[in-house]
């Protein structure tokens, strides 16, 4: 087995050496072209394109979480908070939910309709800003804590935001007179959901349609390209190296002059921004914001993506997110759902999705802790740390 892998690695290196120096750019151009042309291969309402749109939104999420967990090494188990905040930004600022307000900015809604109706891009921006601020707020109490305590505090924040989303119907922003036409404005619509979000509208292009998924696909593809570009530039920047340095050895990094507080808070903020953007898009795509979406399992779903892909590796996050999203949105519900039934078992595969993801997490961690597509530095760290520990076991420690 290991000989086979060594042989394959050798071949791969030989091929890479012979490629001209501009091959990464050419590959990127080809991939982007395939990405743009992909929807023409399927129908306008194809289930596969629907799954792909969700998958791309989750890639954006995974790239955001990868900054916090992968680059900066801060285990965030409350990432669902930013999904919620992003989706609620869309619900608050692009629907008739706040029916006592009457604001319209370049929106697809009729100008007579009450509520706050901002243009999609404006909401996307406000979602990003709200999440950036909340990311820093959630980050603040964790600064002095050690790794696993960070996980619990972020988890607690995620759960608090989820609880507020579910019980937001009890939080009254303005009183009403109690009649069905004027019930008073609340913070959220709880498990009933904020209905009928505005469809995105771009001047000169027109309004999006629910029965034509191609426009949605290109929109999230454009967002993804932007986020991917920012991610790659960040990774290679001074800030990106500071994150990795803090992750590897906080004491050494601080003594080299890295401002720990600012660097960590920036990681939380930037990671949260991407989560919020993706959340806002998903809110608009589902055209409803329902509090039951914001459960802890969502955070784990995104975490599983970047772990399966390889923590800290951008391409790992992309491929891990695509893999798990297709499993979750396409293979489990559409393709293999009736598989247990064909073996005479009395459940469908969707009932098992929790367990499947849990099993994947355990399997990847035990068999291949660096993930499927590891970052080079992380791979070294994982193998070296074990070697160092074993060396320490053999020598007497102080």
């Amino acid at each position, binding site marked *: 087995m290991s000989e086979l892998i060594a042989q394959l690695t050798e071949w791969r290196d030989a091929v890479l050496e012979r490629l001209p120096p501009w091959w990464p750019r050419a590959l990127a151009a080809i991939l982007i072209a395939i990405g743009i042309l992909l929807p023409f291969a399927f129908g306008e309402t194809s289930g596969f394109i629907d799954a792909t749109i969700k998958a791309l939104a989750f890639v954006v999420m995974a790239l955001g979480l990868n900054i916090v967990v992968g680059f900066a*090494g801060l*285990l965030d*188990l409350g990432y669902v908070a930013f999904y919620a905040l992003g989706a609620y930004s869309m619900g608050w600022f692009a629907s008739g939910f706040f029916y006592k307000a009457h604001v319209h900015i370049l929106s697809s809604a009729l100008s007579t309709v009450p509520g706050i109706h901002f243009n999609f891009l404006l909401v996307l921006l406000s979602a990003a800003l709200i999440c950036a601020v909340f990311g820093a707020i959630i980050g*603040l*109490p*964790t*600064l*002095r*804590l*050690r*790794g*696993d*305590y960070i*996980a*619990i*505090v972020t*988890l*607690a*924040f995620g*759960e*608090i935001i989820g*609880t*507020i989303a*579910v*019980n937001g119907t009890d939080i009254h922003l303005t009183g009403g007179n109690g009649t069905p036409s004027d019930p008073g404005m609340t913070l959220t619509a709880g498990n009933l959901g904020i209905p009928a979000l505005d469809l995105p509208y771009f001047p000169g292009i027109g309004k999006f349609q629910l029965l034509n998924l191609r426009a949605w696909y290109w929109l999230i593809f454009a967002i993804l390209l932007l986020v991917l570009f920012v991610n790659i530039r960040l990774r290679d920047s001074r800030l990106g190296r500071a994150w990795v340095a803090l992750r590897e050895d906080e004491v050494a990094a*601080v003594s080299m002059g890295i*401002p*720990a*507080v600012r660097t960590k808070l920036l990681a939380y903020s930037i990671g949260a921004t991407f989560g919020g953007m993706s959340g806002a898009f998903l809110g608009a795509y589902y055209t409803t914001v329902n509090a039951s979406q914001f459960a*802890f*399992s969502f955070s*784990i779903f995104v*975490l599983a993506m970047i*772990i399966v892909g390889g*923590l800290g590796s951008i391409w790992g996050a992309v491929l891990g997110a695509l893999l798990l999203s297709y499993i979750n949105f396409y293979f489990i519900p559409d393709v293999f759902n009736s598989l247990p039934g064909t073996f005479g078992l009395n*459940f469908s595969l969707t*009932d*098992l999705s*929790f*367990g499947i*993801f*849990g*099993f*994947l*997490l*355990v399997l990847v*961690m*035990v068999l291949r*802790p660096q993930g499927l597509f590891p970052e080079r530095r992380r791979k070294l*760290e*994982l193998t070296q*740390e*074990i070697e160092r*520990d*074993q060396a320490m*076991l053999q020598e007497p*420690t102080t």
Partner: protein
Amino acid sequence: MEARSLTASTPAGWTGTLARVRETAGGWGLIVALLILPVYFAVKDLTKGYQAGVMAGHPIIVHNLTQFGETLVQGLSNGMIWALIAIGYTLVYGIIELINFAHGDVFMIGSFATVGFWGTIGLGFATGTLGLVFGLFLTLIVGMAVCGSLNVLIERVGYRPLRNAPKLAPLITAVGFSFILQNVGLLWLGGSPVGVNDLLRQGAVVFSISGVDVHRADVLAFGVTIPLVIALTWFLASARAGRAMRATAQDPEAARLMGINVDRTISLTFLLGGMLAGAAGLVYALYQTTIWYFQGFEAGLIAFTAAVMGGIGNVRGAVLGGLIIGIIQQFSDARFGPEWTGAVVFAYLILIMVLRPHGLIGEETREAG
């Protein structure tokens, strides 16, 4: 709060003063934060009064501490369950510095297994007192055995291969096992809470002290938890294996050199934690009379909060934290409504982390020295 958490990077001159401020706030801030809710409600009951019932269409408003006392008693007995689970967290954290995320779900499996078992051996409303006591005792043993071996199994499969891996790796497998167990629970009894036979008629009043009723459920929680905690304390203090556990928690390498089988000792820790979770599972099922697959997740977080509040790695701390969290949770249930309890408990968790990450009694881990 923000100023304090920024001290890590403040220049040296400031550090001394700020550290002292933080010390004081950490010592008293948490205690004040803990006392705020009960004191506020007690004062409110005494001054403004509350509605104790309705007579001839008029609400009866009384000014006393009976309602307060009842919440307190229920909080304490609930806290007994959290204490049992919290000990499992604290033992495991003390010995391998891992938040055993799957522990809450082991407790949930404990509830499911005990309810299934007492159904199998035919305990019901028709069973006589002696049969009931004996049957439930047997159920307790079975629940403890099931959860103990489950916990040992998880450790063997998920954590032992990662003993030398970075700290995040076993935490992530723990989350994975938590999901697997939840899925088992989901397939076992479905996705919504299931009522179980109220075998003990838990609402029956056993005795009352100046108007505050003590129910059978409260007696059950105390009667199971206190002997188990005493037995565990004795075991850790005196038994050879218990001393091996404490030695391994302090310094695994030194323990290994002294001839302690570290792997077996860690397995024993998981066994003990799992057994207590199994006992808690039975008590929970009899106490709440509803069980569902998600109870473990909620209980796990509450119990972990309890363990951190008392000082992780510390058994007395876990019990104290469990009781305090039980009281907070019961007050929140009674006064804000159960739908807000999660948020209240988590807000306390964050407060503790900010104000006093070592807990009330102080943690006993390697990092703490």
